[in-house]
């Protein structure tokens, strides 16, 4: 039991303060580089979700005692007091987290099973569309899949989805199109298909589950919820960017986004769990604006990311 308390103590310190540092670095870099760039945002959101786990594995499992600094160098200073307090926060968190550890783990495992089983169940209940029945849809999907370098996923054409087209499947992807979407103009249908294929290309269903898993194991930190919600927004924006490249017409893309949003009843017909073109949990107006008035696509280099990560690991090593 003492070992479990020790693990939760250290891990929760890294989660709380790692998330905080990630958030501070994000604010700093978005000021320097300019906000609104999905690539930059995505990198920092993943940073916040991954750094506590990477720090723990680095400092406690793979290279115990590897930290560049040792606590003794700062003991007795104001900085030492600050880090002791941070360690104390981790200790208090462990008092709350350890007793609920098994329930917490059971909920996380249950959620993963639910996602896996619901995906399989979906395939059992619904039949994939036949190429002969919807030749135009398959022609567009085939052409775009080839350009993206992916295998054309299974396509499900279903009724009563409330215009909610979406991509799903962790390892065996599929896309679902509402039958009503097929009543739109050819350009709009191409746009919807391009968007959903972009999600398949990016493996968004799989990465969403990984992000949700990381959020769940660190549920007690506000920064992880901020990062997870940010990633959900970013994945729509990245899918928008890829789809725009596929169809080659920003204005058409914006127009379809608005059209689908309107047909779905605007915000009243809100969200499903999957990424969707027009009625996902994202602000449609902001997405359309970003598409038709694109900003320079800035990012942070891999080297800078590694440097920030190493710096954060070293700072966190002073806490516990």
């Amino acid at each position, binding site marked *: 039991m003492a070992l479990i308390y020790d693990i939760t103590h250290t891990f929760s310190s890294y989660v709380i303060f790692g998330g905080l540092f990630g958030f501070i670095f994000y604010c700093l870099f978005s000021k320097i580089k300019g906000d609104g760039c999905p690539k930059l945002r995505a990198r920092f959101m993943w940073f916040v979700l991954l750094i506590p786990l990477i720090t723990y594995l680095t400092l406690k499992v793979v290279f115990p005692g590897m930290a560049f600094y040792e606590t003794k160098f700062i003991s007795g200073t104001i900085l030492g007091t600050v880090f002791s307090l941070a360690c104390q926060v981790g200790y208090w968190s462990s008092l709350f987290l350890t007793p609920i550890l098994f329930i917490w783990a059971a909920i996380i495992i249950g959620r993963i099973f639910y996602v896996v089983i619901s995906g399989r169940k979906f395939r059992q209940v619904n039949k994939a569309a036949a190429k002969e029945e919807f030749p135009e849809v398959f022609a567009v999907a085939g052409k775009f899949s080839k350009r993206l370098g992916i295998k054309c996923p299974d396509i499900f054409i279903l009724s009563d989805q409330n215009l909610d087209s979406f991509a799903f499947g962790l390892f065996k992807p599929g896309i679902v199109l509402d039958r009503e979407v097929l009543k739109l103009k050819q350009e709009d249908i191409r746009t919807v298909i391009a968007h959903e294929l972009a999600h398949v290309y990016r493996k968004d269903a799989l990465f969403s589950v990984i992000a949700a898993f990381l959020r769940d194991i660190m549920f007690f930190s506000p920064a992880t919820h901020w990062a997870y919600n940010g990633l959900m927004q970013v994945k729509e924006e990245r899918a928008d960017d890829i789809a725009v490249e596929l169809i080659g017409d920003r204005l058409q893309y914006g*127009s379809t986004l608005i059209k689908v949003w309107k047909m779905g009843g605007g915000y009243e017909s809100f969200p499903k769990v999957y990424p969707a073109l027009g009625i996902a949990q994202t602000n449609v107006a902001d997405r359309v604006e970003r598409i038709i008035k694109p900003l320079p696509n800035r990012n942070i280099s891999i080297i800078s990311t590694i440097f920030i990560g190493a710096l954060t690991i070293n700072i966190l090593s002073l806490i516990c």
Partner: protein
Amino acid sequence: MAKLKIKSLIGDFKPKQKGLGKVMGPLEAAVMDIIWRKEEATVRDVYETLNGSRKIAYTTVMTIMTRLADKDLLLKDKEGIAYTYRPAVSKEFFTKSLVGEVMDGLFDDYADAAFSHFMERVEEDEDKIAQLEQLIKNRRDKGE
């Protein structure tokens, strides 16, 4: 009766304050919250609950509760030598009436401005989307 008294509370409406603080003092709001939660309480019950979170005199609590009863927000029944207080209206009814009174007051005197502001709040995104739609149309017309 309760509605009439809510109208009198509006005179002290402080829009910048949070929650019940918009129409009451902070202590009055705290007392009302306790009584809504307990459904029935004596001055001592409320004093003991409040005393856990702040330093307060028994007589202050008694004065506040008497004042709330005078405003018809609390009803009091004599039990032995002590009074038991209960809320005159539920919290939901109170907040609903309060919002109704404020909105009605604004609509009575500033109907156009109040309605227009209300619609702006509701339609913010729809308006932005309509503007973007127009922008797309204009750029299309220019041959982009």
